[in-house]
């Protein structure tokens, strides 16, 4: 035995740092932020995961600013968007999706109460004329103004807002909310010229000559005709015209019995508005509930308020008495094979008819854009103006977006199109070559397959990213064992009697604390939120927090590539890669 005194326990003479276990590994963990599916699913291109995470950390103003960086109208979309983000939310496969719309609404309202104090951007050369102050025009104007360009928005109506003001009923979107958000856009230096119809009050040639670029976002205002015998009889009218009249403050005489034809949001708006005017209301839809394009909550609300929904039925003939509508003769339908958009095609059953007595029919089977007033040199495709990925038309320097083009008709899609056009106009002003018209060049600036992000376009993302990879994190890449099931909070609603008796806002949203609880339900898919789990579980204690707040460092001399961190990462941020690659 040696002379050295042997201790009673095996104790090393030096620290374990002498043993570089890192030499054992053949794979290594790498932190790579990816894209949360909500971000990719948002037609506006909002960093939803980002602002939810900031709220989680209690950084309200930063959350607001991140939201406003991408969306000029969060208090509006928080109320009226069909929130496809929630459909793509990974949490939906775990318990229930995060109630993103309610958080956005709360944060949008917070932004109206606590407006951000922003320094005016440095002005850049470039004046843009925008035709149409709806969601597309407002979004384009807002982003261009924030990029430093001069913007003037023209609208034929007496106030800006487009379909948000003309078409959407007040009980869904209180006007003070819309006014507040438009005020904020105005505060960014955007000028509005209302009551001016381009092509009529000012010629297109003259108008295009006044600006360095033009964005056409005139919307779709022409209600489609039903194509039913006797359609011209008094008492049959376009649903959108009815909504516009009510939104102007009129209370049209619609009689006691109203039949609404259609299954989209306009149809639901018509039904619920007619109910508020005291009518018995029936909705005729030629397919079934499953195929209805309206937002599910709107259908539920319409039924709750007393609308009768009749499925697999379409009007076939309008009967008149004394020159006025008295009944709707309907034909039963059945569903055939799926058509181009995947929904099953309705087929009439010729002899199966029934009649509903009615004083008014509101046709709400869709709206078309009136292209007749637009410059003839703008190429068309289908029923809209043809545009590329950033809204450029066939005529330089004219851009277009929203319902006047051939794209989905939701508010969020219009806002998203306005944003893409702003990016396209910015690029053309700066003579940039990237972001080609086929959209390929735009890829790095989009949330994976989603819309363009202004944070990315401006290369000024306020959220620190780690080695970003522009792909969506699928549910299977998460480790949901680290999450606990928590019930989704449901929006508070006005009582039924109060709802039906006027135009007060029905959906009251979530209390602030509940909205924050929803933010806490967010998985932060694909984004390191510094939960420390990797650090805690690393058996080699090889992971340490970075001082700059941007994630973690891995001591590769000691990481032996066991993969525990990557396996356990709840968010799918850590992946193992082969050594040397």
């Amino acid at each position, binding site marked *: *035995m*040696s002379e050295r005194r*042997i*201790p*009673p*326990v*095996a*104790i*090393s*003479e*030096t*620290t*374990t*740092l002498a043993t570089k276990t890192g030499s054992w590994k053949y794979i290594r963990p790498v932190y790579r932020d990816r894209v949360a599916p909500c971000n990719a699913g948002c037609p506006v291109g909002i960093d939803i995961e980002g602002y939810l995470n900031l709220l989680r950390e209690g950084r309200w103003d930063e959350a607001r600013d991140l939201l406003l960086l991408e969306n000029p109208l969060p208090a509006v979309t928080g109320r009226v968007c069909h929130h496809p983000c929630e459909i793509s939310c990974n949490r939906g496969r775990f318990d229930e999706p995060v109630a993103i719309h309610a958080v956005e609404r709360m944060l949008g309202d917070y932004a109206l109460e606590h407006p951000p104090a922003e320094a005016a951007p440095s002005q850049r050369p470039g004046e843009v004329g925008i035709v149409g102050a709806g969601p597309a025009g407002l979004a384009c104007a807002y982003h261009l103004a924030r990029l430093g360009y001069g913007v003037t928005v023209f609208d034929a109506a007496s106030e800006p807002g487009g379909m948000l003001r003309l078409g959407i009923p007040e009980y869904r979107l209180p006007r003070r909310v819309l006014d507040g958000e438009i005020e904020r856009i105005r505060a960014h230096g955007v000028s509005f010229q209302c009551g001016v119809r381009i092509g009529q009050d000012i010629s297109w040639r003259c108008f295009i000559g006044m600006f360095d670029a033009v964005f056409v976002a005139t919307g779709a205002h022409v209600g489609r005709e039903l194509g039913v015998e006797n359609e011209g009889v008094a008492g049959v009218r376009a649903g959108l015209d009815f909504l516009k009249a009510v939104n102007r403050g009129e209370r049209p005489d619609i009689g006691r019995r109203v039949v609404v034809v259609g299954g989209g949001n306009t149809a639901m708006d018509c039904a619920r508005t007619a109910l508020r005017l005291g009518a018995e209301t029936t909705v005729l839809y030629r397919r079934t509930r499953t195929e209805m394009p309206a937002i599910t909550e709107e259908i539920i609300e319409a039924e709750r308020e007393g609308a009768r929904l009749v499925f697999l039925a379409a009007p076939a003939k309008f009967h008149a008495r004394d020159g006025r509508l008295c009944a709707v003769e309907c034909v039963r339908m059945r569903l055939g094979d799926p058509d181009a958009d995947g929904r099953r095609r309705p087929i009439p059953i010729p002899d199966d008819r029934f009649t509903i007595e009615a004083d008014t029919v509101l046709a709400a089977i869709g709206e078309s854009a009136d292209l007749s007033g637009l410059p003839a040199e703008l190429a068309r495709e289908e029923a809209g103006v043809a545009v590329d990925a950033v809204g450029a038309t066939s005529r330089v320097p004219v851009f277009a977006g929203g319902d006047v083009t051939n794209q989905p008709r939701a508010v969020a899609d219009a806002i998203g199109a306005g944003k893409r056009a702003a990016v396209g106009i910015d690029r053309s002003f700066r003579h940039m070559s990237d972001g080609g018209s086929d959209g390929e060049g735009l890829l790095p600036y989009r949330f994976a397959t989603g819309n363009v992000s202004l944070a990315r376009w401006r290369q000024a993302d306020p959220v620190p990213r780690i080695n970003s990879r522009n792909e969506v994190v699928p549910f299977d890449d998460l480790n949901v064992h680290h999450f606990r099931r928590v019930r989704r909070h449901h929006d508070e609603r006005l009582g039924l009697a109060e709802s039906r008796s006027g135009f007060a806002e029905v959906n009251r949203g979530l209390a602030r604390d509940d909205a924050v609880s929803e933010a806490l339900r967010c998985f932060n898919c694909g984004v390191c939120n510094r939960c420390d789990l990797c650090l805690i579980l690393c058996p080699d204690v090889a992971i340490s927090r970075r001082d700059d707040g941007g994630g973690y460092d891995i001591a590769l001399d000691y990481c032996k590539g066991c993969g525990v961190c990557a396996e356990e990462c709840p968010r799918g941020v850590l992946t193992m890669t082969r050594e040397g690659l």
Partner: protein
Amino acid sequence: MKKVMVGNHAVSWGARLSRAEVIAAYPITPQTQVVEELAEMCADGRLAARFLKVESEHSAMAACIGASAAGARAFTATSSQGLALMHELLHWASGGRHPIVMADINRALAPGWNIWTDQSDSLSQRDTGWIQLYCETNQEVLDTTIMAFKLAETVDLPVMLVLDAFYLSHTAEPVDIPDQAAVDAFLPPRRARFKLDVADPHSFGGLVRPDSYIAMRLQLQQAMDRARDVFERVETEWERRFGRKYGAVEAYRAEDAELLLVTSGTITSTARFTVDRRRERGEPVGLVKVKMFRPFPVEPLRVALGDARQVAVVDRNLSPGRGGIFAEEIRAALYDLPSERRPEIFGYVVGLGGGDVTPATIDEIIERTRAGAAPEREDLWVGVSP
């Protein structure tokens, strides 16, 4: 303060009064009450310990070792299969010289599945380097739990205190609960001789060469040898403060006995009753209770048993292929006594799997021993037909 409590809760109270700092455990019948009570004590703030729910007994012991390595006073409790699952880590605990205290509620090992008392679970861990102390009453359970920490931390060895399933674990008795301040004076906070320290980083339990290994094993053996004296001192101090003492070995009415029973655990109480009855009739019958099994109290047993003509060892345990384990150990301990002082040793295997051991059973053992000039074989079975 006196309280009526089951043996399991006496363990919990012992751990609480000892101010255990880390408790890691996994439930198993009949032990579960021990840690349930401790979990409540931790939850309501009566005990400022970190309570760890773990996924197995193996992990429970691993967590205790980690806690002990960091300098904490660590405690756990288990039974039977759970103890068997810990086996590998029992060696780590003793070889690493971690003064962990663990309660083992004696329970038979499966199969057949059996939740009742049997010492084979703890005795299977004989060679793991743990001190083993067997208890007879709930008061002894509580006192031993506290003394176990003092003993463990003095010699840097883990201690297993052992009590019978149900006969103690689930049986309520009045127990005197010592005053916390007095226990604090008896058992100050642990001061670890070796512990993990970020300011002076070393690793523990790494590779050692044969020369170092055997030197460490020698020190382990020396620590075990020292534990006999240390336990004596610990008990003396306990007696001075609290007025109770048990002894590694206790002789009961053994003076001038021709026949001495040897028991451990709750069978001792039954044997006391039988011995009392026989003494009233003037029969020279006595009893020796073995509390300490590791280190084995060789000298006290030689003293206690050396003058009897016959010794009957009662084992509620079995080493298959050999017989009762206490009997085997006692034969070895007494082997080198001079032949005129060496009693005949009879080994009886009784009550396996929790079978009742009644005064009649003890009487039968006494009668069979008296009738035999010499043991017919090493293991004599009572209460079962061949």
